[in-house]
């Protein structure tokens, strides 16, 4: 068992209060994680400027190289963790054990994080739209087209209130350090692994330790992180999203409600896209916000639902160490039962059918954790309760909806994969503000192009473009250095 301390700008702090991270199947205590109290963060935030100052001593181009090195260390090295150390295999095992995600998926997520860190130069170039990095460093400069520009950091640090159930989200904060912005991380109680391993990899690669703080704790620590950091990224429910709506300091990542929309022009060939649909629903345990939770079409929906049920319905619960394991465990007591209760209740409504029923019981309850096997519903109208739902397991509703109503009826959608050649409809989809990531064509919802922004550009979130006027002589003097 490991003892993992609070990190106050990189300095370990042995809290007198600890939280146990438990193996979801065996009950083994994997680690005791020191818990911060809100006052600690409040005090440490007085030194937040030092985090950015320390990073500004290193040119962005060097930080990008450090990220690449950190990525390799994260993926391959045995790194210090608390009062022990952690190999890459340990990491995957521990993350799987506490989050319920199969081990091979944890390893896949490691590769994903590694990819992002290793391609930081390209990602950076894409996120900043090719901005000269020295302009970001200096705060002002002249673009290649000769226009003076200025980007002002809105906070010396980014606060992150991280989730327990989705290790995939960590890619979102990887570009922050090379932007010379410090990090205040509040890990999810069951997933302290990535923040601490990243800290170890970053600092070993050359990131100043005072640029990063890790403050584990309960809900009060999350609230303190939100109230103390000038810019914060949080993950939560639809209600959380509503709570922070309009708050420019907070970027909320809620449920995705990601969907596949089959255009009238291709829907008669729906079978051609069955693999794409099944992958979008099932891959990476169906837990992510980019996993598909709705397949929408104007016809053939019953057949599509049956075919998807046939494809994903038989998947069985397997041990998380099994390379074939496809489902993640629900590790919070009572959660799976409550979700299944909601689904059963939704299926009571006329027009909603549980299509995977014939493939056996969905809810499987073990001694210390539960599973819900892949579930496909059919809704014969977009107005039914279950037509627009999302749960953190492979779950999809196939919805019958006329194409001309789809854009309005799908509501807020993180990823929409619209399979169509109808350019008029594609143009409407392009203009639809309720869709964040838009794929036009046969592209799975889970296929992310890392060079594109996710729920808004993090550069725009952390930096404000503003006017900056100064005599040409001064501008040239600074910019030619």
């Amino acid at each position, binding site marked *: 068992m490991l003892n993992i301390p609070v990190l106050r700008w990189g300095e370990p702090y042995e809290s*007198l209060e600890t939280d146990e991270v438990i193996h979801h199947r065996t009950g083994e205590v994997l680690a005791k994680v020191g818990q911060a*109290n809100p*006052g600690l963060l*409040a*005090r440490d935030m007085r030194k937040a400027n030092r985090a950015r100052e320390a990073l500004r001593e290193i040119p962005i181009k060097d930080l990008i190289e450090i990220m690449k090195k950190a990525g390799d260390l994260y993926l391959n090295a045995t790194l210090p963790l608390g009062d022990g150390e952690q190999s890459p295999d340990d990491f995957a095992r521990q993350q799987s054990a506490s989050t319920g995600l199969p081990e091979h998926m944890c390893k896949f997520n490691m590769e994903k994080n590694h990819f992002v860190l290793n391609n930081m130069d390209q990602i950076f170039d894409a996120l900043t739209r090719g901005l000269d990095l020295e302009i970001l460093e200096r705060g002002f400069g002249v673009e290649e087209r000769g226009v003076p520009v200025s980007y002002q950091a809105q906070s010396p640090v980014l606060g992150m209130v991280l989730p327990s159930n989705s290790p995939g989200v960590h890619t979102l904060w990887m570009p922050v350090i090379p932007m010379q912005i410090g990090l205040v991380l509040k890990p999810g109680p069951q997933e302290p692994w990535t923040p601490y391993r990243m800290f170890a990899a970053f600092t070993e690669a050359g990131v100043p330790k005072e640029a990063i703080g890790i403050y584990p704790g309960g809900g009060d620590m999350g609230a303190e992180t939100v109230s103390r950091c000038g810019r914060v990224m949080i993950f939560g429910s639809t209600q959380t999203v509503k709570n922070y709506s309009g708050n420019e300091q907070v970027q909320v990542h809620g449920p995705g409600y990601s969907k596949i929309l089959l255009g009238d022009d291709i829907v008669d060939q729906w079978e051609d896209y069955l693999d794409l649909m099944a992958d979008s629903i099932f891959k990476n345990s169906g837990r992510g916000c980019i996993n598909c939770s709705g397949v929408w079409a104007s016809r053939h929906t019953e057949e599509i639902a049956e075919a998807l049920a046939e494809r994903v319905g038989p998947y069985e619960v397997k041990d998380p160490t099994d390379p074939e394991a496809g489902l993640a465990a629900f590790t919070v007591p009572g959660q799976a039962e409550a979700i299944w209760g909601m689904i059963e209740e939704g299926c009571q409504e006329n027009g909603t059918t549980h299509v995977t029923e014939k493939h056996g019981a969905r809810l499987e309850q073990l001694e210390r954790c539960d599973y819900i096997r892949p579930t496909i519903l059919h809704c014969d109208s977009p107005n039914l309760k279950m037509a627009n739902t999302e749960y953190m397991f492979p779950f999809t509703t196939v919805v019958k909806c006329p194409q001309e109503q789809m854009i309005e009826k799908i509501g807020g959608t993180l990823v929409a994969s619209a399979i169509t050649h109808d350019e008029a409809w594609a143009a409407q989809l392009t203009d639809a503000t309720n869709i964040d990531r838009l794929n036009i064509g046969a592209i799975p919802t889970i296929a992310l192009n890392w060079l594109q922004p996710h729920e808004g550009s993090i550069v725009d979130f952390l930096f404000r473009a503003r006017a900056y006027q100064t005599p040409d002589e001064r501008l040239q003097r600074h910019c030619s250095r």
Partner: protein
Amino acid sequence: MADLTQPIQEARAALDAHAVEIVKWHFSPETGCPFWLDWAKEAGWNPAEEIKCFDDIIAKFPHFQDEWLRDKQPEVWVPQEFKGQPFNIFETGGTTGMPKQRIGWNDYKVDYSEFSDSLDDKEFPRDHYWLMVGPTGPRRLRLSIEHLANVRGCSCYFVDLDPRWVKRLIADKQFDQAKAYMEHVVDQATTIMKHREVSALFTTPKLLESIAERLEDEGSSLYEAGIRGVFCGGTTMDPQYTRFLVEELLENKIGFKPTYGNTLMGLAKHKPFTPEDKFSITYHAPQPRAALRVVNPDTDDLVEYEEWGRVELTTLTKEFFMPRFLERDEAIRRPPIELYPWDGVAEVRPFGAMQKKIVEGVY
């Protein structure tokens, strides 16, 4: 560790003798109060004769009902000897509706004079100035703190905080209003600290945090503002939080006296910290004037040492007898120590805190 057998026995004997004396007092027609005399008639037994030791109180009396302090007029609690003497009316809790009321004359002075003996003159200098930032109004605390200051030759400034209003704001989710009210209180407190010499501060943990933060925002600190000793009480202070207060806010330079007390008990003293305590606060009741037990809420039996249970208070003064009152707190039972050779209660927190969300607010 010293052998505590004899001090424990002596303390126990003192408690037994005191219990017998106080029960006799309250249940004798020539000295007792109407409430207990009437109660004994209805109960069908005579506590004045049958109570021979403290354990008899535990065995023979039911739990004291707090409704009695809400429903009965204050005069039913007046012992014969105090008849005709105006009394203080002190209130506890009460977010809405009728609060509990306890009457008294000198108890608070006795309790706080005794408490003064446990203070270090370096941390709480004599002949100086104190500041209390907390609930005044109908509570015993305001007069008690002023008395405590006076006993030490000091005078005390006061900034009021109405905990009932804060609890209502928080229960109604008016967090902005609660924050604004807290700021208002902190404004007043730091204004006094900036313009007057104050060496001792009595406040709640959350207010202490906010006052310290305000001072530090202004480039000062509690120590630089002249504070040398802090009393803190009113809400939960777990070990990590206590450590935070001592190390970060008080910088290990300011004396820290956690307090556990209320209108019904008086003031419990805390066991001076040793490194082995790891900032776990243990309180010892002002025995024999009040006794605390940590009991299993289902069986009423004492829990084992280091186990959690509900706090049960018995108050034994000539002004007020209150047997086996179940506090709205839970705590860990701790063994006697040399300084206080009777059981202690540690890491006090609201009863059921692990099961449900408790509104503690800033108080």
